[in-house]
């Protein structure tokens, strides 16, 4: 297996960072269960997916994530935090 390029869309960036994803998009303020946006918001969903796919072609820093704001999403949510043991 030579490996397959991946890009992650995460609404829990701090949690996801523990696994050091090669490329990751954090749609800022989206709640858990809304990785692409809210139900029926197809234009927003397309924008998020385009932005994620575009990270494949950009020089992102592996293990880091890119946060992008989407005001049309509406009410914003705080992402889950990593529990300190």
């Amino acid at each position, binding site marked *: *297996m*030579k*490996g*397959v*390029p*991946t*890009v*992650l*869309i*995460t*609404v*829990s960036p701090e949690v*996801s960072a523990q696994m*050091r*994803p*090669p490329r990751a998009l954090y749609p800022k303020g989206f709640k*858990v*269960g*809304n*990785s*692409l*946006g*809210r*139900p*029926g918001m*197809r234009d927003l*969903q*397309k924008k998020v*997916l*385009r932005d*994620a*796919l*575009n990270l*494949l*072609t950009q020089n992102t820093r*592996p*293990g880091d994530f890119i946060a992008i704001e989407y005001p049309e999403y509406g009410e914003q949510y705080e992402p889950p935090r990593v529990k300190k043991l």
Partner: protein
Amino acid sequence: MTISRKCVPFTPFDRELARSTIAIVTAGGVHLKDQKPFNTADELGDLGYREIPPDVDSADLMVSHHHYDHADADEDINVVFPIDVLRDLHTEGFIGGIATRHIGYMGYTQQLKAMYEGTAPEIANDIDKGSRADAVVLTGG
């Protein structure tokens, strides 16, 4: 499980998106309604995964997952499994194609070693050998 804190498993992408075929792998517990649901009764989690065909009707998909609120995904599966969105991007010419296989699994488990050493490589191998994907979009819940 020992994870290097320095090494990131990075596979370069040296293609044009408009000529590339994309697969979706979701940890959001997505599967076909006629596939066996993920075991939400076992607090250890479910290490299995489900193959989702490329021509799936999104109305035939559902979520079995007990560690996030999937009410919005129940209403529109595209919020965690953007298959119709991917089709739109294909129609627009933004991507070259839809992969021949997609994957859903339940991204909650207490069996991290088995997930990391068993399920994850199996999914990667399945996608690598069976989906003709040039790249994969990963989503959680």
